[in-house]
Structure formats: structure tokens, C-alpha cells
């Protein structure tokens, strides 16, 4: 029997397979066919200070082994989230990680403070920094090491709960951003968010996404996510949550070998709402046949040639 417990910061999870932000709603409006109690943790869609209606359609399009989305961070806003969603978590045993987004330092901080202010069943926060910094001329928060360190330390001061900074892959050097998050006091980093992509209908000549650019996800980006995790693993000592194109138990193993302590499943859930559980089952089979005693033993154990 394999031990599937993993630890991130001071929090222990029963199972390293989480569901990714934006692909599982708030964790309460889930399809009836699946048993969420078996999922390692649920990361909510990004929550902002004010409600957001999101971008006009078309919001999604399929690509080779992937998809592009531009949902536009549609969400009910933190107040309604506290009012309507938080109470429902009392009925759920699955750990909930609230994903927070903002366009200024203050916005991030205020959302976090509002959540901290209420006694809640949230186990921690994941911070979406793939968002344009309005004060810095629209550059993504996640592209500047100093900004990331400052944001992290601001949030760190405001909570003792698990604090995970979610890294953008659209940078030249993701490891240095991770280092900033570590210096700022993050318990962990997660990587990667979606990769900037575009798609055009050759017949109508129209952009297949209203906002022209969207976020590429799915198996197409798995190699990019794996490289990011390995690069970050070499640079920081805090745990890493691996994300990007995970659709099988073997994919989880690849991410853990590259350096992840846990993983998140995103796009795969759109093919099978129950994907996270199916992937965990495949992981169990792998561990049994490969005789893995402790899943956390895999973390960072890739054998390099050079």
C-alpha cells in the first residue's frame, strides 16, 4: 500500500491530485456524477474584489492537444463568495484553496483580508499573478520578480494560512520569479498557468477568441509545465504544485519526478468531469505495480543524464 499523503507548508493532504483553478467552479456546483470527497484539494476559480461578468464569447477554442480560453476571470466577487459559497463548504470534506486575483496590490490584499475576516473552511490561498498590473502599464504581475516578492510579502503578513503563488509561464526565467515568491514568504508555488496563445478561423478570417489572445492549456503544454517545475525545483526549496496538461497517472508521476509535491488537473476535467479521480486511480495502479511506498518519495527524483 502506497502512502499518498503529501505536505505543503504545514498542511497535509491525503492525495496529491488537486483540481485547478477555473476548471471546477467554486467546488460546490459540481456535476452529480462525481465524488469530490476523494479529490486531494479543490482550487476555486479566481475570486476578485468586485464581481466580474467576464469576456464576451467566443471564450474557448480547441487546438491540437489543447485549448485556448479567455473567460476573463468571470466570478461573483469576494462578498458574494463569502455569503453564498463559503457556508456550503461546511458540507464538504475536501480541502478548499481559494484562488485570488487582483489588478493592484490593494485588491489582492483586500480580497484576502475579507476572506480571513470570516471564520471559514478554506485551507489556504493560491494567488493568480497572471494578471495585468494596472499601475505598471499592464505588465503581468507575474513577470516582474520585485512585484512578485512585494505582493507575496504583503499577503504573507495578512494570513497564516497556506499561501501558494501561481506562476505564469510567459516569462524568460520562471525560476527567478519563484525565488521572489519564496523570499516574500510563500509556502509554495504552483506552476504553470496558461500559455499565451491565439487561434484563427481560416475561412471566416475571424479570431476564434473574442479577446484575440487567450490561455493555452491541455497536454500540448505539458512539456512546458514540466520544464518550469524542474527549473523552479532547482532554484527554491519550498514545495511546488505542478500544473499543465495532466491527463493520466503517468503525467502525475512525470510532474512529481520533475519536482512537484502535488499537482492540479485542469483541462482534462472538461473531457471527463471525473478526471481528477480517474487520474488518482491510475496513479494508485502505477504505484502498486512500481512498488512505490510513499508518493512523496518521487518528488524531484528524475534521473538526469547530465
Amino acid at each position: 500500500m502506497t502512502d499518498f499523503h503529501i505536505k505543503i507548508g504545514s498542511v497535509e493532504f491525503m492525495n496529491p491530485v488537486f483540481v485547478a483553478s477555473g476548471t471546477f467552479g467554486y467546488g460546490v456546483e459540481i456535476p452529480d456524477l462525481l465524488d469530490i470527497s476523494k479529490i486531494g484539494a479543490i482550487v476555486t476559480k479566481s475570486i476578485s474584489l468586485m464581481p466580474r461578468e467576464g469576456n464576451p464569447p467566443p471564450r474557448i477554442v480547441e487546438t491540437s492537444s489543447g485549448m485556448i480560453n479567455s473567460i476573463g476571470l468571470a466570478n461573483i466577487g469576494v462578498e458574494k463568495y463569502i455569503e453564498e459559497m463559503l457556508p456550503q463548504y461546511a458540507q464538504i470534506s475536501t480541502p478548499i484553496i481559494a484562488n485570488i486575483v487582483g489588478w493592484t496590490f490593494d485588491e489582492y490584499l483586500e480580497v484576502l483580508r475579507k476572506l480571513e475576516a470570516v471564520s471559514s473552511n478554506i485551507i489556504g490561498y493560491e494567488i493568480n499573478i497572471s494578471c495585468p498590473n494596472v499601475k505598471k502599464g499592464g505588465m503581468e504581475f507575474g513577470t516582474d520578480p520585485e512585484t512578485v516578492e512585494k505582493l507575496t510579502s504583503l499577503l504573507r503578513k495578512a494570513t497564516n494560512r497556506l499561501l501558494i503563488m501561481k506562476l505564469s509561464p510567459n516569462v524568460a526565467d520562471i525560476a527567478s520569479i519563484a525565488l521572489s515568491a519564496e523570499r516574500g514568504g510563500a509556502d509554495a508555488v504552483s506552476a504553470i498557468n496558461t500559455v499565451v496563445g491565439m487561434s484563427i478561423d481560416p475561412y471566416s478570417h475571424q479570431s476564434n477568441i473574442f479577446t484575440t489572445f487567450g490561455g493555452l492549456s491541455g497536454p500540448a503544454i505539458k512539456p512546458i509545465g514540466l520544464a518550469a517545475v524542474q527549473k523552479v525545483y532547482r532554484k527554491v526549496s519550498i514545495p511546488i504544485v505542478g500544473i499543465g496538461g495532466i491527463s493520466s497517472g503517468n503525467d502525475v508521476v512525470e510532474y512529481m519526478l520533475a519536482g512537484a509535491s502535488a499537482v492540479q488537473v485542469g483541462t482534462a476535467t472538461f473531457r471527463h468531469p471525473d478526471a481528477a479521480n480517474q487520474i488518482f486511480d491510475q496513479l494508485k495502479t502505477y504505484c502498486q505495480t512500481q512498488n512505490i511506498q510513499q508518493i512523496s518519495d518521487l518528488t524531484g527524483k528524475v534521473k538526469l543524464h547530465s
Partner: protein
Amino acid sequence: MIDQVCKVLSINPLAKDIWEMTFSADQLVKIYKGAGQFIEILGDKTWDHPLRRPMSISGITDSTMSIIFKVMGQMTSRFSSLKVNDEINVLGPLGNTFSHPSENETAILIGGGVGLAPIMNFLNELKSINNHVLTIIGARTKDEHHLDHDPCNGMYLTTDDGSIGDHGTVMPTLDRIINTVKYPKLYACGPEPMLKAVQQFGLTHDIPTELSVESYMGCGVGLCQGCVLKREGPDFAEDSYQKKYTVVCKDGPVYNAKEIHFD
């Protein structure tokens, strides 16, 4: 909803590029709620085409479901090459249903192109409860039709080129027969221009109208927020997050014509 591996029981061409497929669905039919609902098919185990394809349920029995589909691109073309006994993965039933006409109302069903799929399903549903129904099915030309023009039995075909049935879109025929009906209720499914015309018609004549709409779908189950459509008016369903957009796979695909806004 459930996620069932289904066996193809029959697959046949109905008209030009239009196919009917029936598959085993014993689990799915148990939780089926009515015409208007759809399924999402994963035709391929590989990730080459990651997303499922939504298809209206066009027919149902104790243990089977049918769809009618048009070859549009790569996946529908692959569907058309499925053989009896091949397996497909079906997620469903999804979405809401057409609401039945009240006792004094007469249903006028309007289908355009493969929009006839849910319409035929609803027609059979209404027939089974002895409702009086009129049906108009439009297509560009004869080759795209597989039904008979049979006005005496309430089945009107239209073609843009007049090659069968009434000449023109569905609208002139609707305009003509609407006066023969005291309390009409309209139900339509088809291409957006047709839906717009029916919506306009229903609003202008103050006729209750339900439209089944299409939208590019990701998950089909309300998780991705990809399939939104703009709302009209203040009403909105409980389970969608936004006032401006409605989530078609969950709140739809059937809407009161007053509720939605086409660009």
C-alpha cells in the same frame, strides 16, 4: 448526468452530409428529462481533438438514444465513419428541456438544418401525449431533407430554392400558418439567422417562444464558463454567476426568446 461507454447500434446517412446514429444508452435514458436535452460525445481517445462534441438528442427508447448530425469538420466527419458496434463515450443527458405547451396552446415546431434533431424528438414527445402539433423544417435544398412535405398532417418542408415543399425560409410558411392557430407557442432550433427571425416574430406577435441555441462548448457541464450567451432583460437563472451572460450548457440550451440576445 453520467459518462457512459455506448455501443453504436446503427448509423445511416439521412440526407446530404447528414447522418443518424443510434447507440445503446441504458444508463443515460434512466436520467433523461425530455426533448431539448443534449449529450456530449468523445469520439476519440486521443487528445488530438480534446473537446467533446455536443449533439441534441433526436430520439429515445427504453435503452437507446439517437442523434442526427451534420458533417461540419473533423470530429463529425469521424463520427460519420463510425461502424455498428464501435464504442463512443457519451456524457449526458445535459441541459434543460423544452417546456410543454399548456392545454389550449398549439405547438409550432420549427427546425432549420440539423436543428431538426431536438425538434423531431420534441415532436415525438408531444405526439405521444396527443398534442396537436405543426412542424416546419427548413433547408437550403431538397438534398438536405429526408422527411416528406405533408401539410395535411402538419408537416411543412421549406427550401431556399423551392426544390421541395414551400419556397423560401421557414418564415413565410410560419407567417401563413400562424393564423390558423388560436394560441400558438413557438419552438425553434437551427442556425442563428433563423433563430433571430423566429425570436423577432415571437416578440412582435407576442407569442410565447422557446429557442434552442448552440454555443461552442468546453465541458458541457457548467464548469468552464466557455459557452456563454448574452442575456436580454433582467431575469436570470439561479445557477449562473453572471447577469450579463447565461451558461448555455447548464441554463440552456433552451431559452425563452425574451431572455437572450443575439449579436
